[in-house]
Structures are given as structure tokens and as C-alpha cells.
């Protein structure tokens, strides 16, 4: 499974020039900064800095871009924990317990835990990739559109059941999100729900909608409070507490391992992986925990599960990119552009002929995880000071950043207007206990779910029997049913045993 001579060649390439290692540090810092500011995205950072890679050789370019990816994956958890605004869609589950920890004055511990889980997650994820890149890529190639549609539905069902007080409202939110995600031109060549606006022909901009829904649900409410953490004594930033949180991660080895495995395998599913992996890992951890009712109220295990999964999903999406040449999301799409800029085509041929580069990228990412520990510990205290900023200064500043970031994403006023409209929707959803995360995941993946169903229909010729030829799809559909009714069945069993 491991080609030792290629691995040694990879190590040799990595250490042959100090430049390759030196560009990792600015890359991680850029990723941390962009991930930590709501409104800025990792893919945006990578796209902005993509032209810089023209002055690098291919391997240096990949190291620079993956270091932005690594820094950004963790950076997204910082606003999720401190402000309940996930910096990226892969940090949604981090906010479920991270933000309640902040409200309890445990923000230092939560940030330390998130850093620890992210770093250990990256190490485990790329370790798995080092050992299993061949088998993973052959597995991914078996994932067809039917499986992708099923995974998307599973993710939305999971998040709907997890993130709302009402199961029905959670699923309604996810379904409405799916419908919003299909607005614009369809495969049939007609436009739906555009209200004759040219801005909506390509659909509703998903990331500005996400920023609006998450930012609004908290920021409008927080505008009338004094500080993020009301208790003044709990507002201090403590390097010791951050480090203690980091060390505390080690006490959750099984949760990290489980989250990492989920992250690598779900993360390798193109387009869906990183948004769903953190939710699935969170759900597994919550269901297996003896104190499952404490989840959503500030249980550190929730942060560990989510962060270990989202950081390893980076390794999963890299496996798909390197082995198949398929980008798993915005960030890996930018990397694919870097492939093209250096006249390299990803895919089976690349992984066969350029194994040394693949191994060098894997080793470099293992190194990045270790560097992230140091840089994260230096950077977090600076960002954690946000709890000391009065809300009347913080709220308008974050709203302004969201508006500027949305303009940056779309290049016209459709971005800021989407933020504004969805901020109102998000506030209403939050107020009436609908699930904002479920709706957001629906919006992000609605178009992809529709495309997957269309491809399945075209491949199957409209025959339902096609489903029975896809055992993985059937397993995922069973998991959906289990996610919906598993709790009810186990409650019923417990009642009948005790009664």
C-alpha cells in the first residue's frame, strides 16, 4: 500500500529547499485570518492568493494553498465558538456546543479544544491518507449520483433533527433550504423562482445566504446586550486555560478517532463532504454519550467531534482531488485551478506517475498540523479578546464585514442584498425555533441534490429497480430512517422494558 521509495523521494523534495517549508507559515496565517472573519471564506483567500503561486513551482504552490486550507479549517471554528457564526459551512456543528461554552465563560477552553481536535484530526486524517490513498480513491469512484443525493438527504435530515427543538420544524427548514437551493436555471433550460431578476438566474448566492442567516440569528439579538459574555469575571483571556483546553482534547481519543474516520470517508465525497462530515461525527458522538442531553448546552465532546471531523475532511477532499481530479468544494476547486496553471492534470495518472509529489503534500500537511499548534496558540489569545469588545462596537463591525465579504463573493450588489434578505429570514427562523443550520445546508446543497437526482434518472432510465442495484444508496436511505425514528424506537423499547 505504501510505496517506500516514492515516500522517501517525497521527503527529499520537501527538505531540498527551505522555501517549500517557509511558505507554509504565511499560508496558515492567511487561512486563520480569513477563516476567523465571518464573511471571508477559505476559498476566497485561496482564490485571492492563487496568482501568487505562479511564481512558485507546483509543489510549493500546493503547499502554500493547502496551508491556507489547514489554517482556514481551524479558523472557521473561532467565530463559531465566540459568536455562534460558523466561519465556514464545515464549522456548523462546532457552534452547537462551542457557543454555549462561550456563554458560560468557557471560551478559552473551547478554543483550546477546537485547536487540539483540529490539529490531531489533520494528523490522523493525513496519516490515514498516507496509508490508504489507493483504497480510498477506488471507493470514491464507486460513489455515484444516487449515493450523493442520498448523502445530501441524510445530512439535511441529521441536521434538522439535531439543531432544532422541534423535529418537524427542523426537517421543514432543511426542505425549504433545498428548494431555495434550486432557484435559477434548471437542467430543463427554464428559470424558477427568479422573479425576473437577472441576478437570480445563477441561483441564490449560497455563501452570502449562509452569512445572512447565521449572522442575523445572533447579531440582531446580541445588539441589545452589553458583551458576548455577560459575566465580567468570565471575560478574561487566559493562555493557561486555552492550553488546558488543548491538553483536554487528549482525554477524548475515541471521539477524535471516530471523528477523523468520519471526516476522511465522508469528506472524500465530492461537494458534500466537509459540510456533512462534522454533523455526522457530532451525531455519532451525541448518540453514544451517556449524557447525550448535555449536548447543545456546552459539552466539550461536541466541539471535539465536529472539529476532528471537519479538519480530516480536508484530507478526504484532497484524496478525491489527487486521485480523481475532482474538487470536493470551493477550496479544492481553487487547487484544481493551480493544477491547471502548472499544466498538471489530477487523477489516476497523476497519482500513479507523481507519487513522490503526493507523498510530499501528505508529509507537508502533517508538518502544517504541528505548525498550526504553535501558530494557533499564538493567534487565539488575540482573537479571544473579542469577548471584551462591547457589543455596540462588535455587532456593526461584523455586519459590515459580512456585507463587504458578500460583495467580494459575488462582485455585485446581489451579495449584500442576499445577506440582508437572509438575515431577516434567519432572525425569523431563530425566533420561531426553525433550524437555521438545516436551511443553510439545504441552500448549499440543493442544486447538487437536484443534479444528482437528474443524473440518477438519466442513468437508470427512470426505473426504480436501479436503486436496488446500489447497496450503498439503500444503506444510506436506511440510515435516514434510523436518524428520524431511531430515538423513538429506543425510547419505546426502554418504556416497554420498564413497563
Amino acid at each position, binding site marked *: 500500500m505504501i510505496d517506500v521509495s516514492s515516500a522517501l523521494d517525497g521527503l527529499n523534495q520537501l527538505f531540498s529547499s527551505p522555501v517549500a517549508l517557509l511558505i507554509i507559515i504565511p499560508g496558515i496565517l492567511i487561512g486563520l485570518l480569513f477563516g476567523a472573519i465571518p464573511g471571508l471564506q477559505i476559498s476566497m483567500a485561496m482564490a485571492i492568493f492563487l496568482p501568487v503561486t505562479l511564481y512558485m513551482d507546483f509543489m510549493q504552490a500546493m503547499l502554500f494553498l493547502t496551508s491556507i486550507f489547514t489554517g482556514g479549517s481551524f479558523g472557521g471554528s473561532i467565530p463559531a465558538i465566540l459568536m455562534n457564526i460558523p466561519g465556514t459551512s464545515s464549522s456548523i456543528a462546532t457552534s452547537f456546543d462551542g457557543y454555549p461554552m462561550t456563554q458560560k465563560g468557557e471560551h478559552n477552553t473551547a478554543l483550546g479544544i477546537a485547536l487540539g481536535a483540529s490539529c490531531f484530526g489533520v494528523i490522523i486524517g493525513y496519516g490515514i491518507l498516507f496509508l490508504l490513498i489507493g483504497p480510498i480513491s477506488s471507493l470514491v469512484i464507486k460513489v455515484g449520483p444516487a449515493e450523493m443525493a442520498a448523502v445530501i438527504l441524510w445530512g439535511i435530515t441529521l441536521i434538522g433533527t439535531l439543531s432544532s427543538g422541534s423535529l418537524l420544524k427542523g426537517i421543514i427548514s432543511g*426542505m425549504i433550504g433545498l428548494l431555495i437551493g434550486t432557484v435559477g436555471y434548471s437542467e430543463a433550460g427554464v428559470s*424558477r423562482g427568479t422573479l425576473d431578476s437577472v441576478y437570480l438566474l445563477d441561483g441564490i448566492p449560497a455563501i452570502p445566504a449562509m452569512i445572512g442567516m447565521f449572522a442575523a440569528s445572533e447579531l440582531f439579538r446580541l445588539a441589545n446586550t452589553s458583551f458576548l459574555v455577560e459575566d465580567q469575571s468570565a471575560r478574561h483571556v487566559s493562555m493557561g486555560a486555552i492550553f488546558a483546553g488543548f491538553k483536554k482534547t487528549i482525554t477524548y481519543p475515541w471521539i477524535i478517532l471516530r471523528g477523523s474516520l468520519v471526516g476522511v470517508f465522508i469528506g472524500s465525497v465530492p461537494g458534500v463532504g466537509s459540510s456533512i462530515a462534522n454533523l455526522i461525527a457530532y451525531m455519532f458522538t451525541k448518540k453514544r454519550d451517556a449524557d447525550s442531553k448535555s449536548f447543545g448546552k456546552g459539552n466539550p465532546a461536541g466541539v471535539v467531534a465536529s472539529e476532528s471531523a471537519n479538519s480530516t475532511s480536508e484530507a478526504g477532499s484532497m484524496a478525491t482531488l489527487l486521485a480523481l481530479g475532482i474538487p470536493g468544494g470551493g477550496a479544492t476547486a481553487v487547487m484544481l485551478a493551480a493544477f491547471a496553471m502548472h499544466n498538471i492534470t489530477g487523477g489516476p495518472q497523476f497519482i500513479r506517475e507523481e507519487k513522490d509529489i503526493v507523498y510530499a503534500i501528505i508529509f507537508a500537511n502533517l508538518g502544517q498540523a504541528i505548525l498550526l499548534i504553535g501558530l494557533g496558540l499564538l493567534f487565539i489569545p488575540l482573537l479571544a479578546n473579542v469577548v471584551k469588545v462591547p457589543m455596540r462596537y462588535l455587532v456593526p463591525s461584523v455586519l*459590515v464585514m459580512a*456585507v463587504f465579504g458578500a460583495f467580494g463573493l459575488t*462582485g455585485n450588489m446581489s451579495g449584500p442584498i442576499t445577506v440582508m434578505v437572509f438575515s431577516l429570514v434567519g432572525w*425569523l427562523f431563530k*425566533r420561531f425555533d*426553525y433550524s437555521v443550520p438545516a436551511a443553510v445546508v439545504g441552500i448549499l446543497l440543493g442544486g447538487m441534490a437536484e443534479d444528482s437526482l437528474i443524473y440518477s434518472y438519466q442513468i437508470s432510465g427512470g426505473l426504480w429497480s436501479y436503486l436496488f442495484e446500489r447497496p450503498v444508496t439503500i444503506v444510506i436511505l436506511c440510515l435516514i430512517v434510523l436518524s428520524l425514528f431511531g430515538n423513538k424506537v429506543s425510547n419505546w423499547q426502554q418504556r416497554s422494558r420498564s413497563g
Partner: protein
Amino acid sequence: MNKNRRSLNGHQLADLAVLIVLADLVIWYFMDARSASGHILNLILILPVTGLTLLLCLIQFIRQFLGHATDTGEVETVKSVLPVIGLFVTYTLTLPWLGFDVGTVLFMALFLWLHGERRLPWVLGYSLSFASLVSLFFTAMLPYPMPMLIFPS
């Protein structure tokens, strides 16, 4: 009828109204998509999701109407949030005319004033410096022009 049924309070009535509006929007979207094309490729996701959503909305409506709705806990008063929402909506809609630079200064200054900051040097100093910094950063970073009134776009 459920014997435990209670009369609905204002928040619960608003909750029902939101549910009805959501169901209406789902129906409108389905009708719009269907009028565009009834081809299976156009409705392959929209039709089943619309059906499922409306069914769930109906069940939820009955549950809420009978008083089985979940307790949403403490909710902030609308009155306290409306000024913030109004200011944010105005800020976003006036950006093409005021520009991101001037619009942001005004938004931040008004927000600070509305939320009790009465130290004028702080209000003006923070609004001006933050708006200038963010405007300059984004105009330097983005490859396309941003609407600006004072700074070069």
C-alpha cells in the same frame, strides 16, 4: 379535540402565521417552477420536496393549533430588534448611492449612537477609521470595482 388545548398567545399566533407564510411560499415556488416547465428534469426534486414540506407543515399546523408546539423559551422583544433591522436594511439598500465608504461610516455612527454611545470623538473616530480600513482593504483585494463615494473604486 384535545382537552389540554389552550388559547394561543401572541407569539404562538405569529408562529402559526410564519408557518402559513412558509407553506404559501413553497406552493408559490412549485407553481412558478411548474409553469416554467412540467418536464420531469425540472421537477424531479421540487415536486417531492414540495409535497413532503406541505405535509410536514400541515402536521405542524395541527400540532401547534392543538397547543402541542414546543416551548421556544425566552425570545427577545420585536421592539428591541426592529431599529437594528431597519438600520441594517437601510444601510444595504443605500450602498449603491452612498458607496461602501460613506454608507459604512453613517451605518456605524448611527448604530453606535442608537446603542447609547454618546462620546462623539469615539463615535466618529471608530466609524471613520473602521470604514476606511475595511474599504481600503477590500478595494485593494477585489479584482472588480466597488461602489465608493470618496475612495477610488
